[in-house]
């Protein structure tokens, strides 16, 4: 019974954190917009409802767009889940997405493989390269004790400039106005799940499959178990006989693989040429999502949906109203701060705990008295 009360508390607490974060967003909207109500309408209901002549109707295409936007962030969210579970604050997911996308794109342009297999191969190669690059912060941490936080941050910039170097000097299609590669071979494109303008590709299904795979991996395999135990208590894990160094490396390589996979699936599912000229930002969003999901893979799609919805709302707000879409960063930061705050509403939790333990004490006394009598 006490556990249920705690669960209810935790859910309410999460909801309160999100509302508070949205509240911060509203304040900024009211401050910056000449037509705050209009802006708010686009932010909150715009993503899935169309309003015409005062009549609400469900906007299927827009909803599909939101689902499509979840594809890369589900992957980065899962990646962060795995890495943070091992207590490794590796922030190179951002670079890994870009690298995976670029490598996947090159494979899509230059490899000749029949349809269906082609995108699979591209994505696998992209994922593998991103996984390998994570060996840099992982090995430096495990072998030399260099902070993965700093090395992974530096790695993001290094990856970005290397990709830009190769894009500009070797793979650019000079016939185009903007810097981009040649077009992908048609065989390499990830087919659309639903035809139309939403860009909702089969990648979405793959992402959901990976949610299940990663959840199983983390909670139903010996490797995931070791990752979680090491995250909770490293000396304990070493003493228990776990291979701590190898597991820490594994967690980050998996983080790289998942991020890289997200990058290449996004590129092959959405575009027909590679055109990212800066870090795409999915890595950071992945951190927000992992925090919302409390590092539990199963909750990742819901958190990703929430963020994608907000993101879409912010875009609409900047298109149809006068609030810049970067508003999303303010809201995300606020979510981050409140949601991850352990002591947020802790007073109420303490009240529940005190109440529970008092009940328990009374029960004990009662049962003791019963025995004595």
């Amino acid at each position, binding site marked *: 019974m006490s556990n249920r009360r705690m669960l209810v508390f935790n859910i309410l607490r999460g909801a309160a954190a999100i509302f508070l974060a949205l509240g911060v967003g509203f304040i*900024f909207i009211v*401050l*910056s917009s000449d037509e705050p109500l209009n802006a708010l309408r686009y932010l909150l209901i715009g993503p899935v409802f169309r309003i015409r002549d005062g009549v609400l109707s469900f906007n299927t295409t827009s909803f599909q767009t939101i689902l499509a936007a979840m594809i890369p962030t589900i992957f980065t969210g899962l990646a962060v889940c795995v890495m943070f579970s091992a207590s490794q*604050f590796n*922030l190179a997911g951002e670079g890994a997405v870009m690298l995976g996308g670029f490598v996947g794109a090159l494979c899509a342009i230059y490899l000749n493989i029949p349809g269906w297999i082609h995108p699979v191969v591209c994505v696998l190669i992209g994922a593998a390269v991103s996984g390998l690059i994570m060996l*840099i912060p992982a090995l*430096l941490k495990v072998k*030399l*004790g*260099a*902070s993965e*936080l*700093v*090395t992974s*941050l*530096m*790695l993001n*910039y*290094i990856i970005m*400039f*290397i990709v*830009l*170097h190769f894009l*500009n*000097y070797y793979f650019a299609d000079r016939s185009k106005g903007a810097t981009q590669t040649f077009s992908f071979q048609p065989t390499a494109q990830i087919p659309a799940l639903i035809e139309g303008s939403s860009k909702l590709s089969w990648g979405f299904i793959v992402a959901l499959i990976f949610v299940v795979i990663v959840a199983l991996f983390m909670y139903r395999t010996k490797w995931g178990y070791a990752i979680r135990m090491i995250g909770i208590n490293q000396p304990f894990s070493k003493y228990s006989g776990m291979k701590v160094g190898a597991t820490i490396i594994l967690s980050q390589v998996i983080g790289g693989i998942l991020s890289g996979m997200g990058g290449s699936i996004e590129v092959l599912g959405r575009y027909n040429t590679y055109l990212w000229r*800066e870090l795409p930002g999915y890595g*950071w969003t992945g*951190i927000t999502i992992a*925090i919302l999901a409390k590092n539990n893979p199963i909750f990742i799609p819901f958190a990703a949906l929430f963020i994608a919805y907000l993101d879409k709302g912010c875009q609409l707000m900047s298109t149809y109203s006068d*609030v*810049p879409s*970067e*508003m*999303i*960063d*303010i809201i*995300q*930061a*606020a979510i*981050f*701060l*409140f949601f*991850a*705050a*352990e*002591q*947020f509403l*802790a007073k109420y939790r303490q009240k529940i705990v005190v109440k529970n333990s008092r009940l328990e004490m009374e029960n004990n006394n009662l049962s003791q008295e019963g025995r004595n009598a």
Partner: protein
Amino acid sequence: MFEQFLDTILKADFLFSIIRITAPILFAALGAVVAEKAGVVNIGLEGIMSISALFGVLFSYWTQSWLVGVLGALVVGVLLGLLIGFFALKLKTDIILAGIAVNMIGGGGTIFLLYMFTGMRGNTGALVSQNILIPTINIPLIKSIPILGESISGHSVLTYLAFILVFLIAGLLYKTSLGLNIRAVGENDQAAQSVGISVLRIKYIAIGISGALAGLGGAFMSMYYSQGWNSGMIAGRGFIALAAQAMGRTEPIGTMLSSLLFGFAQALRTKVSGLQGVSSYLVSLIPYVFTIVGLVLYAISTTKKVHKYRQTQAEAVEA
């Protein structure tokens, strides 16, 4: 090409640019030192620099005074430091996540804030005029010394301040009771608490100072270095500062030396990218690669040191 390269770096203006480029990193790295000494990891330096840089320009534009701009940036830095402190210390958000949140605000959030305050998008181009930039100082006597004079004289007020602050921060940490308390809190906060030092207060002060220093770094960037604010202008300097602090063993002087090293790397990038046939992208890598290599060398040296220490001991025992 190599000669051309040597020609470029062995010049007063190269030394000058090392100092100029080091200053913002040094500000933030000193901020990292103060925070770390109190046992607080301030990963939000990057975001603080970016936001303060924006507000530096805004304040100086509104008041047409560079000094108010710099002070405004400093105050914003303090407030952001305290914001991280509030969430990390009071509400127990993981301090790394609190820092990342501030970095998010420093990323897209600044674009929003700029729009909110001015209606501009992306950069402050139209706001900046020469009279609201941080002024430079020519040092009369030193100025006339060849090479040295040319490289040391003529910097901005803030550049000199950055290097003076190295010694002020060292004095603060080792000669004042606040410094004693900061070090005590960082080393054993329970012990500090048991003698009535308010650990929270000291940590707030430390992260506030840390924010102030990063704020100055931000002001330096927008009000002198880039002559205006644009999104992405900090370009990882806040993160590099963290690396400089780690390499400088969290000591002010050591951190200044490692910051100069990063300044050198970045100055090199600026010079080399002007040369024919060099990829500007690969050159842009230099400071980041340098940071990783620096951290690795530092890590190797510490492991070796421990090893060596143990070895000399073993030898002493045998003898």
